[in-house]
């Protein structure tokens, strides 16, 4: 009995010893993790706690801890407010249309670029279509105001055929088209990089073999190139769905004019105005939380659906 006990203690001390040794040996690695952990804790985790003000009647004087709990009042207020439906639908429509139009274009573009035989031509075309990606949101929005203003070059052209200039920047009817078209103009080229890279892994012999068997160009694109892109498309699609509710907030805010608000007010701009500008902290936090919960749900749903269809998953 005594022997067993002593053996156990020896084992335990040995374990302890080795654990100590282990930590000591890997001390530097843990040290490497410290700055990232500290910053993520401060700037990501503390605001997650701070989001509790969505359920409180927050006043800056009382602080987060001292403010009173009021439950779901802010959420109910938001859901019942007269502009809820409009803001919610604006957000959904803007993101859904952008995804619907903006997601497939880089794929098509990559398939088209892939058909360019001369490597140098291909590289130069790529270089040119990447350019707008490097312009800032402010510059893109500024250019839109210049080009689409009633006296701007586009309207100058259009008034050759029409009596009145088109109020692109003030008529709510045009907001989504302007927003999405300019996004496509700016990022479609750069977004095609990843697909072009994936396509460069296609074995040319596959195409040769298919051609000998009589496959047409379109058949080869559909049955070879698109198949190679499938996993990349799946992963990027899940990510795009997860980001749908946060889409283009910086640009939407810049393109807002008093006149186009019925189409341009989206959840994030509303949070900014109500929460930060008007100082309605709790209400703003509640609307923001509402938005993140929907994003999270969409991400999980997209991941499950794609997994079922394709076997690819994000996590």
């Amino acid at each position, binding site marked *: 009995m005594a022997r067993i006990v002593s053996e156990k203690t020896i084992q335990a001390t040995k374990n302890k010893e080795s654990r100590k040794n*282990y930590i000591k040996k*890997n001390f*530097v*690695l*843990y040290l*490497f*993790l410290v*700055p*990232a952990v500290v*910053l*993520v804790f401060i*700037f990501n*985790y503390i*605001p*997650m*706690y*701070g989001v509790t*003000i969505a359920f409180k009647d927050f006043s800056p004087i009382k602080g987060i801890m001292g403010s009173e709990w009021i439950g779901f009042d802010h959420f109910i207020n938001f859901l019942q407010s007269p502009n809820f439906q409009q803001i919610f639908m604006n957000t959904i429509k803007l993101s859904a249309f952008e995804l619907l139009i903006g997601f497939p274009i880089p794929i098509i*573009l990559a398939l*088209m*670029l892939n*058909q360019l035989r001369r490597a140098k031509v291909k590289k130069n*075309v790529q*270089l040119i*279509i*990447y*350019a*707008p990606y*490097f*312009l*800032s*949101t*402010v510059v893109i*929005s*500024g250019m839109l*105001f*210049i080009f689409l203003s009633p006296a701007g*070059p586009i309207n*100058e052209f259009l008034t050759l055929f029409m009596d009145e200039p088109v109020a692109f920047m003030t008529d709510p009817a045009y907001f989504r088209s302007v927003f999405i078209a300019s996004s496509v*103009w700016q990022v479609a*080229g*750069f977004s095609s*990089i*990843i697909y072009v*890279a994936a396509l460069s892994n296609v074995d040319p012999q596959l195409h*040769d073999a298919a*051609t*000998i068997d009589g496959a047409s*160009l379109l058949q080869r694109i559909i049955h070879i190139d698109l198949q190679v892109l499938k996993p*990349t498309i799946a*992963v990027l699609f899940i990510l795009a769905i997860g980001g749908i509710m946060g889409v283009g907030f910086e640009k939407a*805010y810049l393109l807002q004019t008093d006149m186009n608000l019925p189409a341009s007010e989206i959840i994030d701009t509303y*949070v*900014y105005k109500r*929460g930060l500008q008007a100082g309605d*902290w709790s209400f*703003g*936090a509640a609307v923001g939380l509402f938005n*993140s919960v929907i994003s*999270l749900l969409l991400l999980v749903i997209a991941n499950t659906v794609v997994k079922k269809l394709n076997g690819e998953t994000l996590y």
Partner: protein
Amino acid sequence: MKSKIDLVNNSKTDRMLLLINKIILILIVLIITAPLLYVLFGSFLSPNVLLTKGISLNPDDWTLDGYIRIFEDGSIVRGFLNSIMYAGGFSIVSVLFSILAGYALSVDNLAGKKLFMLFFIVTMFFNGGMIPTYLLIKELGMINTPWAIILPGAVSVWNIILSRTYFKGLPNELKEAARIDGASDLKIFLKIILPLSKPIIFVLALYAFIGQWNSYFNAMIYLEDQSLYPLQLVLREILIQNEVQPGMIADQLARAEIQKIAEMIKYSSIVVSSLPLLIMYPFFQKYFEKGVMVGSLK
């Protein structure tokens, strides 16, 4: 990449398709370049010429007035310098901390690795949002300081995962050999890993720098003093809010004249602010491509 076989065997429709493909691509190139060239030419034309004649190639119509006014006023130059500071600081913090963490998490069998990964990954799926983050920054006393721009968001989980993937791809034998020779973890990292990591460091720094350089939102909510404004906030005043910086029109009194000059200044400030990145990115093209390759490895 393509061999000769499919050139020979292309059917008539295929060749037709390839021709259409080329035409569409040429159109795309035109659609991309036309607005950029319009702004570039517009920046050299006096507002009267642009309004009446449109883009004019006659050298008599050209002027540097817009650029002179920008440099005389100085707010764009100051914004430029501020942006270099913010984007530079942000990139350094971001890259340094991300690769340190990414390296630690790439080491096999590090105890607690899964827990750390979970700690980071949670933030990809959920965040506190704008208001709680703003209240935190305020609580920390960072409002109206460069720290509010440089620190939040610098450590991105995405960067940690990218660098971890990169380190995992490095041959393990190198580390093992060094360890047998008695090298410590720190030494292995500094002497063996870091020299091999230039591509990933460069890629992460490039994306961090460009992202920060082109953003305005955090600066808009956290900075109050105009002297701290980054370039994009100065541009926002000029381009979106139609505010003319006083130093740019000091010599003008008539409102109509000021309005015209303001239009010209828009063109030249777009050029001044966008040109550096547009000139530099072609040199980094292969790194952008490398960046997505690392990312696609998962």
